[in-house]
């Protein structure tokens, strides 16, 4: 399957196969009008199968969340058909509405409109805690 190269934009590569759609939603890509390709199960010499997202627009996207989802993801910035930067996302200091607090005693468990905000409390061990109740995030990355 061929997907055209993009001229100016972002390529999010080496997404674990099956997680592309989750990232598509977390980045709110459904709200954009530009061309976006979500490629699932592409073959990868590095990880076997992978998902790729190509965004054909010069946008200021907040990609911080990718560091939490998977630090092995590769972000490529493309300008005039050339890759000008390639990097792995860093762990963000705060995550808003990415993780849900599971503590039944937390205020977020009863007041639905409150943002679920987690802060990074231990970078080395990738531990996030709810800013309200300090419960540790329970996720596959923690």
């Amino acid at each position: 399957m061929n997907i055209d190269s993009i001229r100016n934009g972002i390529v999010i590569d080496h997404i674990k196969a099956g997680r592309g759609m989750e990232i598509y939603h977390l980045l709110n890509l459904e709200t954009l009008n530009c061309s976006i390709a979500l490629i699932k199960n592409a073959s990868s010499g590095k990880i076997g199968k992978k998902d790729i997202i190509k965004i054909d627009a010069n946008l200021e996207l907040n990609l911080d969340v990718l560091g939490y989802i998977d630090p092995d993801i590769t972000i490529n910035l493309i300008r005039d058909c050339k890759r000008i930067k390639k990097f792995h996302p860093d762990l963000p200091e705060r995550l808003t509405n990415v993780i849900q607090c599971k503590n039944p005693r937390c205020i977020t468990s009863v007041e639905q409109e409150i943002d679920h905000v987690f802060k990074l409390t231990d970078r080395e061990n990738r531990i996030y805690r709810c800013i309200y109740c300090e419960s540790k995030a329970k996720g596959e990355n923690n």
Partner: protein
Amino acid sequence: MRSLIDIVDLSVEEINSLINTANDIIANPVNYSKKCHGKKLATLFFEPSTRTRLSFEAAMMELGGNVLGFSAASNSSASKGESVSDTIRTVGCYADIIAMRHPKEGAPMVASLHSTVPIINAGDGGHNHPTQTLTDLLTIQREKERFNSLTVGLCGDLKFGRTVHSLIHALSRYQNIHFVLISPEELKLPEYVIHNILNKQGITYTVTTSLEKVMPDLDILYMTRVQRERFFNEADYIRLKDSYILNKEKLTTAKADLCIMHPLPRVNEISVDVDNDPRACYFKQVLNGKFIRMALILKLLEVK
């Protein structure tokens, strides 16, 4: 505008300053009797309390201010489903400062994000209770005349005991503190407190299930109640509630200047035969609580 949600919101210098003010209030109460004239404190207690609510109200009255509020969620619009943020925005129109207790952890922080007046966390579930910690610190300062070089035994419910978590936070900022954590296996200090405070700051601690064994080492013994309201399962509460009962006999091996503290209310974890022991400080704590809350109200209202 400052709020007090967590004891670590206050620097060591600020805590020392509050303690100095509280001691001055104790020495010269008349000088403070009109400091808050014309000011109103709202006490919003979504969960029952005797000491903390009355202490806040007495504190404001002794500063010459007025109080309003409710003492149970059923007496507020929360029973109609009103959110914390809406309640706070409303009460901020009536009061100059708010003391709030809520059964859900983090509720006072949510309140502070939406409030136009200072919020004081008067206890949020099993999480934080910073004014109890200020009370405890004032008591330790008055009884031991120092915060450094103390062996502090914390006994009972260390898992849900919010007073214990806040006290550990506060004392960890002083030098040469050693904690002795005495609890049944099921009510051990949460991992995040051990990791984020004790381990991170290199504070030494001992974990034990035996109060008798460590009694001779202690400068301070902080007893806590196993709280029925923190258990989802009644059977677990019944099984654990009588884990530690301090009585006169157990105190025979204790230091002569041991300071026995308890945030109260107690059920049976301190036998009444200890009440007349000169080392029992828990009723002094109650009184100190009012004075330190007076100092805190003055600070947050920026009254000179």
